């Protein structure tokens, strides 16, 4: 999706290491799956340790290649996380809008990242499972029992209660927290694809120019090593000239 038509002009390209953190079963892997393959699986195997995927994101002036580290969410895997967020330039901290405790966990992650990760890391707070909150006609085919009725809207407060809206975390609450900590903030649905690409694009735009590295090992085509090296030289030159920030892809 994001990289359709990327080949037309040789834009400067750089890779960004991005890590996904958040409680178990909030939909980290599903977000990645939606972003990378534009696909959604109802029963996805839990991530063991971490999964690694890549995807490009085209900005008007350059191409960002995300190296995505999708981590396991269960509490006890937390001690493995430093291994994965090491050197990360961006982080997606995901919570489940239908589960209040997951936001709390997300806040812990944000705190951890702010203290332990590389300085200047771009953090986005993402409330997933939007489809469960706003009973969305598109989600009729789903299994979820919570999104049966079609009355509630996304911005409503949590007290609308069970039958029509499974939302437990009001948008306001999360947004306020995100503003306070200067995080990017989105509510997404990996199932419907809502806002997924937008999150990654916003991150791509927010990555400071200076922290961008050159491209590394393009998509497994290992025999291109030489070319890449020369490309890297060109790229740095281009970057120094400072292309202006573009809009979303």
């Amino acid at each position, binding site marked *: 999706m994001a990289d359709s038509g990327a080949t037309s002009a040789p834009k400067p390209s750089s890779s960004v290491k991005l890590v996904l953190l958040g409680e178990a079963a909030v939909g980290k892997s599903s977000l990645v799956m939606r972003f990378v393959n534009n696909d959604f699986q*109802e029963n996805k*195997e839990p991530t*063991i340790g971490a999964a690694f995927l890549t995807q490009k994101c085209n900005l008007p002036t350059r191409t960002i290649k995300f190296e995505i580290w999708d981590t396991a969410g269960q509490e006890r895997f937390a001690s493995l996380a430093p291994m994965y967020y090491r050197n990360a330039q961006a982080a997606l901290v995901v919570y489940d809008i239908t589960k209040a405790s997951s936001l709390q966990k997300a806040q812990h992650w944000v705190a951890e990242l702010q203290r332990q990760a590389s300085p200047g890391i771009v953090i986005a707070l993402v409330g997933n499972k939007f489809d469960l909150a706003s009973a969305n006609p598109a989600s009729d085919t789903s299994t979820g029992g919570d999104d049966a009725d079609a009355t509630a809207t996304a911005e409503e407060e949590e007290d609308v209660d069970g039958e029509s809206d499974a939302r437990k975390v009001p948008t306001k609450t999360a947004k306020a927290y995100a503003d306070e900590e200067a995080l990017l903030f989105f509510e997404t649905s990996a199932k419907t694809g809502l806002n997924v690409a937008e999150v990654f694009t916003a991150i791509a735009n927010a990555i400071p120019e200076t922290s961008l590295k050159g491209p590394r090992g393009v998509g497994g085509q290992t025999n291109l090593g030489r070319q890449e090296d020369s490309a890297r030289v060109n790229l740095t030159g281009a970057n120094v000239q400072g292309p202006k920030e573009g809009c979303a892809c």
Partner: protein
Amino acid sequence: MFNLSNLVQKAQQFIDPTLSITGPSSDRRPSKATLFRHQFRLPETQSPLQEITAELTLSPHHSTRGSSGESTSHAQERDRPQGNHYVGKLHLSEQYLCFSTQGSSFLNTASLSASSAFTGQTHGAGPAGNGFILPLCAIRRVERLHSQSYMFALAITTWNGVSDGKAKPGSAASGQKLTIQLAGSRIQCERFCDGLKRGLREGVREVENLRAVVSECYSEYLLSEDGDDKKSHGNEDRKPREHPDTGLGMVFKYPGNARKLRDATKIRLWREYLRENGRSATLIRQPTFHKLIRVGLPNRLRGEIWELTSGSFFLRLQNPKLYIQTLTKFSGQESLAIDEIEKDLNRSLPEYPGFQSEEGIGRLRRVLTAYSWTNEEVGYCQAMNIVVAALLIYMSESQAFFLLSILCDRLLPGYYSQTMYGTLLDQRVFESLVEKTMPILWDHLAKNDVQLSVVSLPWFLSLYINSMPLIFAFRVLDVFFLEGPKVLFQIGLAILRINGEELLDATDDGTFISVLKSYFARLDESAHPRSENPKLRAVTRFQELMVVAFKEFAGITQNTISEQRSKHKGAVLENIESFAKRTSIRNLGPESKRLSVIDLGFLYDRFYEVLYERQQRDEIMQHEAERKAKAGRMKATEVVSGFSGNNPEVGRVALGPSPTQMDYDGFREFLAGIAKWAVTDSPSSPPELNGDKQNHSYFGGSTRSRSTTISPWGSGPEPADHEFMKRLFRRWDTDMNNTLSLQNVVTGFAQVKGTKDIMSNISYFFELYDDDGDGRVDRDGILRISEALLFLSRRGFEGNLSPSPSLHDLATSPERRENRDEQFLSSISAFIRRCFEYADPDHAANQVRQAAADLASFSIGSDNDSEDLVDLSDPASPKPNPSSPRLLHTKIPLSPTPSTSNPLSPVKAKATAANLALDPNNPLHITLPTFRMVILADEVLETFFESGFSASFRLLDAPQPSHASSSSNLTTFSNAAARNALAPGAGASVGGAGVGVVPPGKGLRGMLDNIVSDGMRVAAEVRRRMDEAQREEGEGEGEKGHVEEEGEEEGRDGELLEGAETADVVVGKGAGVVGDLLGPPGEGKKEGEEGVKGRQRSVSEASKILEFER
């Protein structure tokens, strides 16, 4: 026959190096029992009782159709006419008879098989080499054979097949027979036989279990199929046996193409092997066994063989109903683990049809849930779902349940624990092995900043199940269960080696991962597609992988892994601990923000240090007791794997759930480490003083385990036990569960230390003594407060000197200090006076009378100060003593009316109710404003509340030289351990150095202490007299109760100890008796048989005969 002496010599020669470990003297080495259990995969209940060098002879005619199987055996093993011979060690435990050709397996040297070219690959972490692990209950008959030599030869007939056992107890027709020659001195042999006989008799009880367990094994079905058709022995009609549960695969098909896997051929080979070598419980490992496993197990037999090789079979045998019982016991209960399990049920091997069905998911749910209940420390860890799902394809729920516990406890120690330290450690080990075996690749990875564990962690954690295609992962598992954890490393190394060149081209994680991904996807392809040789072309990449793993990396043994583990353990644990600390401190909540991060870190360290040390001591004491009780039979702690071995490590934060709640005693110890006043005045705790304290302490009963040889406080200072501490404890225990969590402690400290406001300090103190929260503190409370103030100040106060004094200060200014102490005493004395002066009466109705009485009591108290001191004949106490008012009343304890204002009744409520004399008429109280006023009226007290009190808790702001070391280090535990190691048994001065405690009774400080403690002693004395008076009247019920309880407890302790000793004696005697009864086997068959038959009818009933023929 063969040349025996030669054999013995050879055996000795091989086994000699092991003697130092396996000899009888090794009882002193606690690790041996564990090593033994690990080698034979036996349950924790087993310990090596006897062992002896022996030769195992498998007679070729024990099976009617043995010839076809023989062909697969090595030629050289058949050079003797009597079938296969193996030299090795025979071991006897409580319930098992084990034989292994790898006698060396307890040692580092590998491969000592005397008679076989093929040796197992376990090197001590699994059933190595050839041999057997026979549950004693599976032995039907043992005969002593005539032998030409002086040696003992035993013919063992095993119990084979459920059917026969039921039908004819005496019949041994179908049982397999094996002959064992014992090589050892006559005495050794006799001892061994004695042990065996005892074990056999005990084993009778297990027969029912065995029958139940074996009936669930597919091998029984497999063999009974043809047994019923072809064999003639069982001529009773039998319904076709029910097909045992061999996993979901029965219903949903096993993964892979059965024809391609040559399942039928494998089953045929196994059937032959099993028929000759015993099935399930009685299986004998011959070289063919290992080979059959290497080529992959047939689907239906896979579960059973996994169970046998991993040892989970023995667990199941031990407690066949545990699984069902656990499920029933906890049915309907909720837990965190269950929530986590539910999240993952739908996503465990979702591609396998069985796990898209309710049936499969139900099984998975039950096994995971049952396990989470039996091991709540582990609970549920993601990846377990995948592993268990894989197991359930091949085995029944109950089998999978036991196999899972073997996995968690033994094969993958610490992998799924709360902190996953095992996983992290093994990743570190794997990295170091890569570094060692593939330095070029390692350099490349390092240069490109590729983190290997990112790739390899899932391999280990889910046993390659979600990395490789299932059919290949199961092949790895086949070997893994037999040979142990090192298989995971070997396979991992082989994967890297095979892909080495491509990996060297990869410069980032992404490429690295994709290379391996595509490799796994092509495991079924030919490894040499272009080869001319069709045979070579037929070799798949997976076969190549196996060959590389087990040939090229044959040098990676269990010992390699163990060594590496212990090498890296410290660093890994420290990492986890610093992470845990960081997280924990960050999550302490808003209250904690009132303390500095450094202080929080200090509190965290100190809190867990105390818990940890206390746990250690408990354990040591427990061990001590156990040792006494069990005399000689030691509990092993060292594990083959190199983990959880060192006892002192249990409870380290990084090793998983450790205690997080601190009880009152722990709290005292904790306080003693940070506040001087919390250290007792009598570190050696002479019993009489101790007892005295107990009797009169309001909250008695915290001096348990004083009688042990080890100080219950370890090397640290012995904490005091004062009512104030109890009150603090209760105040901080906001959850009302009688323990404190770190959160409680931090919140508590935030209240005490986090505020600089004198008013809130005063109200805090007041609230501590306002028991019912009505804003009033009564007479008793006032005196308690004064006592507490005395208690807190008895070591002097730094608060009014400087907020952060040091030992140095204290030592250099004794005079000033003395002055201050005096000041303080008089301040407190004044405090009491003023309190009573300004106290409000409780009831308006009583007001008048009370006022008068108050006045009277007050005036009496103050007037008689000096007199009292004289009376007490304690001229050493130079201060007006606040406890003096009490004395008045001790003089008149029997007269009911004048004791109007007995303010010091230690058991206020009860005593007042019980004894009218105590103070019926004029209860009075002070309120917070009064209290404040009284405090502020006195400069010393004011200073105390302004700074002294909170400064008396020393966190890191106190510049203690020894603090620096502990604070700079993130992990306290290692620190603490080091300190303990350095100063074992050192007194308070050493242990307390790190926490700034002054040992009492030294030099000038001692003098001051004496003065203060004299004051305290006076108070105690007064109280004691009062109590006595009360008791004489028989009215101090509550107090008495205390005393009695105390006495009882002591009595019980004593009993316990005595019990332990008598237990020893009984055991000893019992053994003696049994020995006598049986007599040495050499004394003749009759006696032995009589003994057995006469005493244990059940023996013969259960078809067991011990025959000893000359």
